[in-house]
């Protein structure tokens, strides 16, 4: 499997994501000004502060040339995985539903949180069990997931809510404790926690690796390559 990690000016967790993805396959960086996705099987839109997060987090990054290719790639069924700032970018780009607002604390928060896997019928959590707990850190100022109530009902009904903060672990005031959502087609996924910072026992937990392993397993399926 070959994963492409986008690099915007202001990306911070791009190398981290590349190194994490390299544990399950090949991983390359994709420069924001280039449209060529280099034939990757999956794209990671990493964390950081693309374009300084000025105006709104992710608002400017979504217009980068590479994002046009990512949108096409997604509409062709390619796997797109947005982490933190990447999640914000994908929401701004309308590849994912909802929006991310300032944490209710109005402060940046770093915390190792417990997540609950809600669904595993998607390429991103397929190797997890529903109800399984994952320990993964969050670090953001703008991570409060929001969508209007009727949209939320629809999201839940269609199985698009993939990860929740476990009870007592919601660090930002996200509605319905939502930590990660996918699109209707289930090939675009975004989450605020940082699985790339949970891939090595030396530096933390290894629970984040399961998400990357899920992607790798999916990419190996012959049907996915089509």
């Amino acid at each position, binding site marked *: 499997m070959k994963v492409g990690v986008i690099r915007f000016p202001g990306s911070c967790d791009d190398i981290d994501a590349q190194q994490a993805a390299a544990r399950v396959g090949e991983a390359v960086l994709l420069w924001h000004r280039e449209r060529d996705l280099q034939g990757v099987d999956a794209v990671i839109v990493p964390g950081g502060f693309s374009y300084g997060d000025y105006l*709104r987090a992710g608002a400017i990054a979504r217009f980068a040339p590479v994002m046009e290719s990512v949108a096409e790639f997604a509409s062709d069924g390619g796997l797109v995985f947005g982490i933190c700032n990447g999640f914000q970018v994908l929401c701004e780009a309308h590849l994912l539903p909802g*929006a991310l607002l300032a944490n*209710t604390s*109005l402060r940046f928060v770093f915390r190792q949180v417990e997540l609950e896997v809600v669904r595993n019928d998607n390429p991103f959590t397929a190797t997890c069990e529903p109800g399984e707990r994952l320990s993964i850190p969050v670090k953001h100022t703008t991570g*409060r997931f*929001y969508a209007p109530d009727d949209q939320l009902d629809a999201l839940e009904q269609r199985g698009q809510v993939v990860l929740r903060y476990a009870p007592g672990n919601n660090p930002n*005031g996200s509605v319905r404790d939502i930590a990660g959502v996918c699109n209707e087609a289930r090939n675009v996924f975004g989450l605020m926690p940082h699985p790339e910072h949970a891939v090595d026992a030396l530096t933390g937990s290894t629970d984040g690796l399961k998400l990357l392993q899920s992607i790798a397993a999916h990419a190996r399926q012959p049907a996915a390559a089509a």
Partner: protein
Amino acid sequence: MRARILVRPKEGILDPQGQAVERALPALGFEGVANVHIGRLIELDVEDPSRLPEMCERLLSNPLIESYEIEEAAK
């Protein structure tokens, strides 16, 4: 034209910044303040004002969570 764009959080969406200000004011001795909302103020010189709504929808605001209003600003 010098344009002024007012971007406000949509009604019904929790506005913790507004709430924080509302809570802080009485503590400083400012009573009688309510309904505080905090948004963004964008001011710019624009050659073709007819393009402003599109700019607002595409970049300057996020229609899911914010509404915008365009005004002409005094130069």
